[in-house]
């Protein structure tokens, strides 16, 4: 089984620019209080991602424009 490429299949391109703004932050931390800090995570359109994932996305975004 081949996993689909996350960046292509999981995120709508329209959200990419939004995801890169600081205001997105760890949305989860504002709704509940998880056991661990969520500083390394970001929630975009329901996807729970590592912040490092965003670097790949921005790379994809640059390539696609």
């Amino acid at each position, binding site marked *: 089984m081949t996993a689909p490429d996350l960046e292509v299949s*999981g995120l709508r391109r329209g959200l990419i620019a939004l995801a890169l703004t600081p205001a997105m932050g760890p949305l*989860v931390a504002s709704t509940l209080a998880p056991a661990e800090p969520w500083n390394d995570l970001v929630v975009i359109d329901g*996807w729970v991602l590592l912040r490092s994932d965003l670097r790949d996305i921005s790379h994809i975004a640059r390539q696609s424009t």
Partner: protein
Amino acid sequence: MHADLDRESASSALLGRFDVCIFGSGPAGMTTAVELARKGKRVALVEAGGFEFSERSQNHYAGTESGIQNWNAIRFKRLRYFGGTSGHWAGRCGVFDEVDFSANPYHGMTGWPIGRRDVVEHQAQAADILDLGKQLLETRPLRSTGRESAFTHAAVALSPPTRFGQKYRREVQESSNLQLFTNASLTDLVPGPARPGGVPTAIDHAVVRNYAGRTFKIAARHYVLALGAVENARALLNSDGAFKTGIGNQFGWVGRCFMEHLNVEFGRFVVRDPVIFAKGSIEVAPTPALLSAERIGNGVLNADSTYQPEDYGRLKDVKHALRAGACKFETVREFARKFGDFSCVGEGVITSLLEQAPNRDSRVTLTKAVDEFGLRRANLHWQINDADRRTVRTLGMAFAADMARLDWARVKLHDYILNPKLEIPVGDHAHHMGTTRMSREAKDGVVDANCRVHSLDNLFVAGSSVFPTGGGTSPTLTIVTLALRLARHVSTLVP
């Protein structure tokens, strides 16, 4: 020995005097009865149905439902014949951990008056009864990735599944210590005389009826109700001759705190590490540290990536091409999912079995409608509360975070997990628990640590209706374990 009451012609006859009389032949009742008979006690096992399923018997389960409805729990998710609901259970088994036996649970209601240490000696025998073989029932850490996880691999074992009616029929019929009565419906538990100025402290005899409407009596030193969570409460509430609010109900607990295991879909995921999902799915349980830190319920989360959608029919090639095309665009996928279960290769779904916090308002009550014996039927009102919503949302987010940090998968949580303003769609697992909850003090429940009804000397309850909390795994192994413990306790009371 076996007697079919539908073939008995005598009316108002005393069917016998026994050391112990047990009502219900499901996993709890059968285990208790067989174990006591093996210990040389004279046992009556009273089953309302026959050896096979029949609509006439099952119809006695008909009732109404409110709260979370449309799940047909009261009518179809339990069975009223020899072997009880083991006749259609799926076989999943798990061990209640220390945290599941907590005396001071996260939700503020009273917890278990016994600990895992009080039942662990019976666990191996219970596993044998359920034919679990050598399957491990211990949690193990997620594969080491150099970082801590909030989850462990869940300890889940699979029974074949054991059908108690098939497994024990011959032993029950051939045992000289055990008298089985079939087609014998319990209609009343009649207390003995009260002390001057007091209330009765013991059951004198039980009244049972066959389907022809004939009435019989059974007398015993001790009685055990093992009818399932709905019927145990219904039987106690219907036995309201000497006790106006029903037997064991002086503090109003009978029927309350009905619990299920919550069946919630958390969302979807895409696999990042195919090795982890080589077997298709993983099942994880939260660590005690996470449960303690967050003050939430326990559970098992299943991430199943085995979706390999197949298309059928003459147009399957066209369907396959359409599916492949749709899967390339998230907007199209989500649109398709509005109309049904639509999956793409490489995706998975996260489902769960979660502990529900006990809740006084989630309960079994009696309605005005009666069955053919004149017993009032039950209404099952099932609801969840804010503690449950917090359990669902916290576990969903913690799991999604773990999957990302371990780089095993990326999870897309459903809106209702992330947005507390949305109601969570909750399903069930056909695990009926609570309604005669165990408590240290009479004011907090129905039965004591030995499963004895607080206010009576000789009436016991077996099965998951005694669970004060439901734990984070399937209940059958714990039901059988507690039944073995009950059998040993009752055997010490009989000379």
